[in-house]
């Protein structure tokens, strides 16, 4: 990957630049964060002319290595006001990598009051005015662009929510089945909407492709890596069998399943929304219990969910969405949640943030807890339509809470807390409090170690002991996963299978002709986290923002668990 594409929306021009030395060893999140930190004024308005939208594939994206097709999108987040990296599967990362695009930086705002479509190919970027697809949802966009550009086209797009610059707006990525994966968190769809970009189509015809420095060594290392991934019970059996929804029963049994807007830690009807039930239902109805979000995926944690007549409803049906609508909003019905998941994909809103917002809205009396039909109606008739209520819901959980005078508002840095109650799973609470991204469960997934002993044994989820060290270790390692283009679930074999990390290092060395050693990983993580934190500090954040909301002092059944870390204990996190 040898070029940086720079697109200026102020004059609709674009350039191809050589990769500066300081970015050469970076990819994915490490690269998007380096670029945002270097080029975006930390105090800028996230929807204004000084914010930039950066896309970057991972360092191993485009190679034949398994599970390396993740794409990173970075900017200053309009939801959190912090630096943001949002990560997605789909087809875009591999196409960018094959085209030799190390990063695409989109800057400025158009002068005209028009919408634009972008086309990226081996010849660079072309930008043209777009009218036909304005106001359309993402599924219609995929269909129309496949007609225009051919079935193989890659697509990044925003739905109605992004056009309206809602803080829950996401960026959609076309997957192999012409369905949708999402850069979900942090409202990056609003940044794309502020720059009046409705879609980015990608054509990798005659792309230069990937040149490996040492193809034989790469092949061997890739084989070792794939074996390690398959041999871990999480990635080899659990996830392909039950998907991420397997966590419903695990988290419920541990007493950390957010229920009724984070009032309880267990949900009576947990079986109705469990991974076990999801699998049975999918198989009964002829869907796919195993499915990959990117080509080269050997984990296959995704699924295709059909209705009772066997028609497609949604794919990529994840634990956090199912839990938050199912238990936290008390809907308890997979069919309704699946329909909601489809609508949220279509209108282009973060299914996590929006689901949490509904929980707060229910506490506020906007609609009753458990009102699944009400959620579906508000998604289409309010959020997609941009009514005042829709704009409230579409602005995320924190803002709903503010506007309705609610105190039980589960957010950190204004981003909603996903699907794990920090009182009963204290490791993830530290990640929520300290992550530069706001409340982000993937940034340092302590749940694996707290509940299932990933990485060397259980760290008791109900105790404060060891949680800060655990979250720190995981947040540092996760930067590496996010920067190589790796699926987050590679974190499980990376922690437990000794051949995994050496194989990753071997692949990097064979790809680029380097001589990295495993301590490169820690270095990359530390540097990136500190870069992100420095941006946040300059944007106005300090340690007082690394805190959980006050209501987490209330005991949570069944364990009467409370969030009892002091500020000083939390701030220890940054002692590295």
């Amino acid at each position, binding site marked *: 990957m040898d070029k940086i594409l720079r697109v200026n929306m102020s004059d609709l021009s674009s350039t191809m630049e050589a990769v500066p030395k300081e970015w050469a060893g970076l990819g994915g999140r490490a690269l998007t964060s380096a670029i945002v930190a270097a080029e975006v004024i930390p105090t800028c308005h996230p929807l204004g002319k000084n914010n930039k939208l950066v896309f970057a594939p991972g360092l191993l994206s485009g190679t034949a290595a398994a599970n390396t097709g993740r794409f990173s999108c970075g900017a200053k987040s309009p939801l959190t006001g912090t630096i943001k990296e949002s990560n997605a599967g789909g087809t875009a990362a591999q196409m960018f990598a094959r085209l030799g695009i190390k990063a695409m930086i989109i800057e400025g705002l158009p002068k005209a009051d028009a919408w634009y479509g972008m086309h990226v190919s081996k010849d660079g970027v072309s930008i043209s005015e777009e009218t036909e697809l304005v106001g359309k949802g993402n599924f219609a966009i995929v269909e129309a662009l496949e007609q225009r550009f051919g079935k193989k086209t890659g697509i990044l797009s925003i739905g109605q929510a992004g056009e309206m610059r809602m803080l829950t707006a996401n960026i959609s990525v076309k997957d192999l089945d012409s369905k949708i994966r999402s850069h979900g968190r942090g409202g990056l769809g609003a940044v794309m909407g502020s720059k009046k970009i409705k879609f980015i189509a990608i054509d990798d015809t005659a792309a230069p492709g990937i040149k490996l420095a040492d193809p034989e060594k790469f092949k061997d290392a890739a084989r070792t890596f794939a074996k390690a991934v398959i041999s871990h019970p999480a990635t080899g059996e659990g996830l392909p069998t039950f998907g991420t929804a397997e966590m419903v029963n695990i988290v419920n049994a541990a007493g950390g399943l957010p229920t009724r807007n984070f009032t309880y830690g267990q949900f009576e009807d947990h*079986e109705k929304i469990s991974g076990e039930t999801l699998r049975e239902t999918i198989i009964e109805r002829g869907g796919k219990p195993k499915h990959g979000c990117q080509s080269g995926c050997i984990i296959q944690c995704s699924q295709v969910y059909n209705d009772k007549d066997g028609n497609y409803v949604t794919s990529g049906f994840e634990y956090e969405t199912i839990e938050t609508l199912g238990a936290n909003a008390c809907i308890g019905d997979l069919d309704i949640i699946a329909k909601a998941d489809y609508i949220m994909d279509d209108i282009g809103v973060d299914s996590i943030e929006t689901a949490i917002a509904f929980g707060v809205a229910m506490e506020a009396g906007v609609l009753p807890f458990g009102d699944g039909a009400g959620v579906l109606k508000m998604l289409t008739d309010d959020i997609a339509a941009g009514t005042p209520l829709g704009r409230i819901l579409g602005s995320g959980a924190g803002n709903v809470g503010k506007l309705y005078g609610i105190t039980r508002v589960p957010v950190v840095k204004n981003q909603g807390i996903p699907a794990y109650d920090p009182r009963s799973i204290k490791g993830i609470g530290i990640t929520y409090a300290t992550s530069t991204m706001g409340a982000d469960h993937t940034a340092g997934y302590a749940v694996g170690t707290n509940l299932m*002993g990933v990485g060397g044994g259980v760290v008791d989820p109900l105790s404060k002991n060891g949680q800060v060290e655990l979250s720190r270790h995981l947040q540092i390692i996760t930067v590496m996963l996010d920067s190589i283009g790796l699926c987050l679930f590679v974190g*499980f074999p990376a922690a437990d299978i000794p051949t995994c990390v050496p194989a990753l290092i071997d692949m990097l060395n064979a790809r680029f002709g380097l001589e990295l050693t495993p301590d490169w990983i820690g270095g990359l993580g530390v540097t990136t986290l500190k870069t992100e934190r420095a941006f946040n500090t300059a944007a106005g954040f300090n340690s007082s923002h690394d805190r959980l909301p006050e209501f987490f002092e209330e005991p949570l059944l069944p364990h009467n668990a409370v969030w009892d870390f002091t500020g000083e204990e939390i701030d220890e996190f940054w002692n590295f």
Partner: protein
Amino acid sequence: MKITIELYATFRNGRFKDEQREYMDGITVGHVVDDLGIDRGEVGMALVNGRHASMEQVLSEGEVVALFSMLGGG
């Protein structure tokens, strides 16, 4: 004494979702696992009344043992 056993994920295959069973006093989590024909190494998470338990933990009347095969997360 009566113990409630909850089985999850692949442990349900050929067994049950939840059942109450009679056991001798002094039985451990590990004994319950063995009794079910489950390899102890396959247990991803064992909880007693919602708290993590080792195979050596001695059980008391009325406790709930939840057993999960090795899974992952999301």
